[in-house]
């Protein structure tokens, strides 16, 4: 399949969606390439956002819908960019689309296949805390509302095909390659978390009641895996919950993949947010946040932090040195009471949330010759004056692909990247020439 567009946006998270909307609203054609089966990125999996405590789904879903229904925006899910080649002033983008084994145009998202499927697998979207079927709609507010079949776990029993009212199941789908011609490329590939929980000092990944921040988001989300906050090990309501700050951030001692030396910028605030939400959903729970220092630097952040203190959330200055398992599968944190007499204590909690480090979600340098910093994030042409321009003309970057940042900053940067891309398209006259040629060719 060969197509032409004005701009390709790599990544359909909140930054990528904003870039696409801002470009499309200016009259440019945009293709969003998303590797997951739904757009929405990390934000759609969050419970609420700081510091406003807006429901994340409620403010993210309209953006997803706006992009999905925009006449100038094409969304390609289950798709990855394999190569970006410069041809004159424009780019040739090779996109590989994995088969869903469900015909996208035929599927009506009724989920009958899902109800018929006999296979249960841990649900990645729920941080592996809940279960899904082998054929499933990615999550309740996924966009597009189209099922996909997970061939790794499918038993090919045929139940889904028999249940499907529109005969949308196609076991024989093949991967598809799309050659896309575009005048600009925007990298909005987002972030990933370090595997901090696998570090020996944090229990080596073996402690059931040690969760990551994103798993806690799912427990707190109204449509989360349990529908309420429960301990994974035994389904009990936790009495004490601890947050371990800088677990994997600002840490030179952990190996690559488990920790990063920089500050991940959002953990202080989302831990405070989660603590507030927890005390809302479990009014009797004791919450302790172990921190090195609270970085509440954004607009309204300090007030948010002070509110949390006033609500009775305990803030203890101590870096957690070790997590072991005590009685009743309780994680036990070893800390120094720095602000008291400096004694060392083993403090048990029912449940512990680690806030892992933030690393780049994807390395674009394998397909686009953009420069990558030593931290793995995309390098800007100029960190302060041109944060959205990469060192390749026509390739721009937005959101956490260029470094850890929160949602408002990602949105702002997405707008800036869209403006840079629009300027580039106008300067190279790519879009207007393309339209003229199309009209002349009678296309």
């Amino acid at each position: 399949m060969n197509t032409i567009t004005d701009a390709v946006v790599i990544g359909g998270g909140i930054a990528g969606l904003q870039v696409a909307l801002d470009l499309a609203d200016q009259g440019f054609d945009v293709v969003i390439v998303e590797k997951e089966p739904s757009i929405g990125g990390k934000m759609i999996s969050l419970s609420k956002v700081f510091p406003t405590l807006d429901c994340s789904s409620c403010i993210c879903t309209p953006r997803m819908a706006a992009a999905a229904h925009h006449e100038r925006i094409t969304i390609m899910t289950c798709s990855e960019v394999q190569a970006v080649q410069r041809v004159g002033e424009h780019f040739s983008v090779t996109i590989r689309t994995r088969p869903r084994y469900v015909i996208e145009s035929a599927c009506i998202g009724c989920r009958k296949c899902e109800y018929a499927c006999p296979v249960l697998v841990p649900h990645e979207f729920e941080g592996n805390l809940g279960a899904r079927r082998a054929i499933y709609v990615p999550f309740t507010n996924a966009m597009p509302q189209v099922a996909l079949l997970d061939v790794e776990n499918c038993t090919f029993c045929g139940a889904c095909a028999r249940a499907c009212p529109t005969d949308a199941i196609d076991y024989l789908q093949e991967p598809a390659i799309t050659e896309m011609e575009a005048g600009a490329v925007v990298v909005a590939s987002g972030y990933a978390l370090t595997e901090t929980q696998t570090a020996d000092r944090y229990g080596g990944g073996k402690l059931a009641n040690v969760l990551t921040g994103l798993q806690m988001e799912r427990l707190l989300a109204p449509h989360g895996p349990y529908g309420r906050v429960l301990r994974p090990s035994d389904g009990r309501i936790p009495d004490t919950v601890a947050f371990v700050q800088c677990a994997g951030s600002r840490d030179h001692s952990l190996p690559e993949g488990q920790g990063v030396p920089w500050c991940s910028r959002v953990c202080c605030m989302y831990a405070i947010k989660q603590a507030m939400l927890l005390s809302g959903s479990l009014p009797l729970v004791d919450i302790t946040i172990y921190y090195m220092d609270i970085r509440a630097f954004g607009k309204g952040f300090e007030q948010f932090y002070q509110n949390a203190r006033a609500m009775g959330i305990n803030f203890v200055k101590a870096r957690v040195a070790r997590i072991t398992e005590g009685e009743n599968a309780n994680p036990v944190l070893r800390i120094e009471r720095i602000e008291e007499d400096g004694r060392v204590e083993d403090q048990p909690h029912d449940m512990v949330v680690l806030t892992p480090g933030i690393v780049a979600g994807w390395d674009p340098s394998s397909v686009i010759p953009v420069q990558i910093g030593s931290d793995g994030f995309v390098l800007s042409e100029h960190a302060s004056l041109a944060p959205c321009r990469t060192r390749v003309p026509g390739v721009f970057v937005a959101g956490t692909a260029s470094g850890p940042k929160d949602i408002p900053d990602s949105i702002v940067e997405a707008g800036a990247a869209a403006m840079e891309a629009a300027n580039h398209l106008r300067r190279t006259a790519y879009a207007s020439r393309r339209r003229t040629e199309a009209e002349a060719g009678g296309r």
Partner: protein
Amino acid sequence: MSMSLATDFRKDVVRLGAGDLTACMNCGSCTATCALSEGTAAFPRKTIRYLQIGAKGQIEGSLEPWLCYYCGDCSVSCPREANPGETMMAARRWLTARYDWTGLSRWMYRSHWVELGALLAVAAVVLALFLIPSGFGFRALSSHPEALDTVRLDLFASRTFVHIGDLILAFVLSTLLLSNAARMVYLAMRGRRVPIRAWIRPVTEFVVHGLTQRRWRDCDNDDSRFNWLRHILLVSGYGTMFVLVVVFLNPFQVEDTAWHWTSLLGYYATLVLLAASFTILSDRIRKRTQMHAFSHFTDWLFPILLALTSLTGIVLHLLRLMDLAMPTYVAYVIHLCVAVPMLAVEVPFGKWAHLLYRPLAMYLEAVRKRAAAEA
């Protein structure tokens, strides 16, 4: 609690090899990682904090540096690579210098030229003792020509004189060391009300830790077990040699090639000293464990001197067995020119002083605890 701050204090300790004090942001993960931290005798963060702010008075009186056995876990897990383990080591160096009332220790810790100069000066005195007096050393040989044909060590260096020298050296060095230790007790305990009872009961701590270094075994890693084992063997070898030289010099310093019961002990001590000092040096060269990753020049000097003492002792022993008279005498003098300066410099002023300071710190910590419990 009032405290006075010394602005140049931090520079002093950094000169002695402390880690990056400015990197530390007091997160406390070192203290919480430490297997030996317990109750309020928790370290290293507090010690580092005192160093950062220049709380000299707090460091002077602190025992924590001596309670640390440097397993290195804190340095490995420090998120800022501030090297708390080596900072504790530097604090021990600073304390050793602080306890020493002569001020020599401070000089020697700050400049390796001074330390080498001191070693050479003591060696020169030893050499002079063998060259100048008429009835002793090389000048004694002129009146005993038979001592040039066969080894007559007693004519070259009479056991009576050497024994007297031993005892004088032991007296001077222990006086210096004990007076330094008295300053340590004063600095650690001043301003505290300690009932007599609290001073007496914990004496067992002193004896047990002095003999076994048991606390080291509580360090929570395998390297520490090995290091403890090597150290206790080294101590046993050193102790054996000390007893042979100071108490049993008569049966130890012999001149014939016959079998002596002291040889067995001598062989054991030499073997242990040699093995320990060489493996310590190899560990420091290879930076085998965190403890060996950073080496101050005093960390090199001590095992080098130990190894040289053992090697010259072996050469001396072989030459005597081969009955080579003059080479034996020369080897004897060289052996003493290494061993005596090592003892004279390291025991009261250097790294070796820890043999008293560590068990004393354990004892004083126990006294403090007991006093606090009774109060």
